[in-house]
């Protein structure tokens, strides 16, 4: 971290920490509010809260995993070297060409048959399957973002004697980030919703919790409405955070 201005690094970390805190606070408030809801919600609020927690955690883990996969694949996908580009291309083709539900089922049921060491529990099977899935979509976003940085930027950096890696690190990626943040967050919003598919392998996340309460109480309307509103609350919160982040980044360098 020799060059990055400390203040900007600090701002980034502070923003991330504030976002996490905001989400924790939001979850806490939502949990408290659910208790005061009329039957059948109030008495079963803890099950909703537990489900929402699993949904958020699985989204967090698979989003981080998917970001790492996406950056690596995106770089490989845009590489001039065929031995990097081709595997990335095949991976993206496979993942985007098959349903995410099948991928979750595959990681949970089929993978342990093929590789006995990979016997994952429901949570990690779903987190990894979702991460691998969103990674493929992120890769395309990141490749497009890198290509959107004008070639003159790399030329200028290279003409100053910066190596390829340093050019990427200091010039191309920082500019690509501003371009890719909105579509990447869209992917996270999609991920949060897709995490409901993990209910098929028996992971008790928000939608499975809703299904259970609904069939237990025979009151699908209030229960499933609550479930939908909880998803909506979180997706809206994510979108709001990004909107703030975009604004902050744009104000610094441009306008």
């Amino acid at each position, binding site marked *: 971290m020799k060059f990055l201005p400390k203040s900007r690094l600090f701002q980034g970390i502070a923003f991330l920490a504030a976002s996490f805190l905001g989400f924790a606070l939001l979850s806490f408030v939502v949990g408290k509010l659910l208790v005061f809801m009329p039957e059948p919600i109030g008495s079963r609020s803890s099950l909703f809260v537990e489900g929402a927690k699993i949904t958020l955690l699985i989204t967090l883990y698979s989003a981080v995993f998917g970001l790492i996969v996406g950056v690596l694949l995106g770089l490989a996908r845009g590489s001039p070297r065929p031995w990097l580009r081709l595997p990335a291309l095949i991976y993206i083709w496979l993942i985007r060409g098959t349903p995410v539900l099948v991928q979750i089922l595959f990681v949970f049921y089929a993978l342990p048959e093929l590789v006995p060491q990979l016997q994952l529990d429901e949570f990690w099977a779903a987190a990894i399957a979702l991460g691998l899935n969103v990674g493929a979509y992120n890769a395309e976003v990141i490749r497009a973002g890198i290509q959107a940085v004008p070639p003159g930027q790399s*030329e200028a950096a290279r003409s100053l004697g910066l190596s390829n890696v340093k050019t990427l690190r200091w010039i191309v990626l920082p*500019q690509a980030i501003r371009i890719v943040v909105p579509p990447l967050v869209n992917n996270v919003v999609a991920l949060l919703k897709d995490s409901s598919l993990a209910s098929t392998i028996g992971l008790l996340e928000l939608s499975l919790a809703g299904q259970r309460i609904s069939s237990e109480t025979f009151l699908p309307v209030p229960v499933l409405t609550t479930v939908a509103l909880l998803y909506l609350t979180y997706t809206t919160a994510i979108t709001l955070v990004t909107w703030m982040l975009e604004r902050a980044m744009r104000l610094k*360098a*441009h306008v």
Partner: protein
Amino acid sequence: MSEKLLSIRGLQKHYGAFHVLRGIDLELGAGEVICVVGPSGSGKSSLIRSINQLEPYQAGEIHLYGKLIDPARDVDRLRQEIGMVFQSFNLFPHLTVMENLTLAPMQVRGLSQAEAEARATDLLKRVNILEQKDKYPSKLSGGQQQRVAIARALAMDPKIMLFDEPTSALDPEMISEVLNVMKDLARSGMTMIVVTHEMGFAREVADRVVFMDGGRIVEQATPDEFFRDPKHPRSKLFLSQILQR
């Protein structure tokens, strides 16, 4: 004969079927200022972009201090010795003016931030733009951006400066502020190759004018000879066309 700083021998370049450079030989001594002129498409830009390996060439040799440059191995070292100024400035929009100047010296030369900033401050003073050091490039005029770009290239302490039509993207009233900085630089003894359409600048500053057409160097002469009495019919035609305006 004294050792030439840069010598180019038999440089050939193709863009697919298009033969851009058809065997260029050019020598450059320390402190010399060469202006490369000629119609568009004549290969001027390709020539200077080949010199610091921004574009590959298919045949020919480039020697720096008498040492043959291997395009596969010496690229980063070569580029540290050669500064480049682009037509479209290419400042880094996400970095302040000061950061634009300090990035490469810190990342490539390993200077400390204090050293790099001290050097950058001197250079920004020299191009007369120090008061803008904390702004982002988008807040500056074209002329100011190009002066920052010149300072950024100088921050690496290059032996040669290449200018690729540095004033072609500028509004007319900003051209002279950039040319003045370049004149100062030439007077200070910097070795320069300038691709330009500014004939006044070439006449005043160049030690030698190189006229290119169709991927070849058609004529090389002192500015006095070239502008007063061009030898080649192509040079005559070019000058008559450009001076009519």
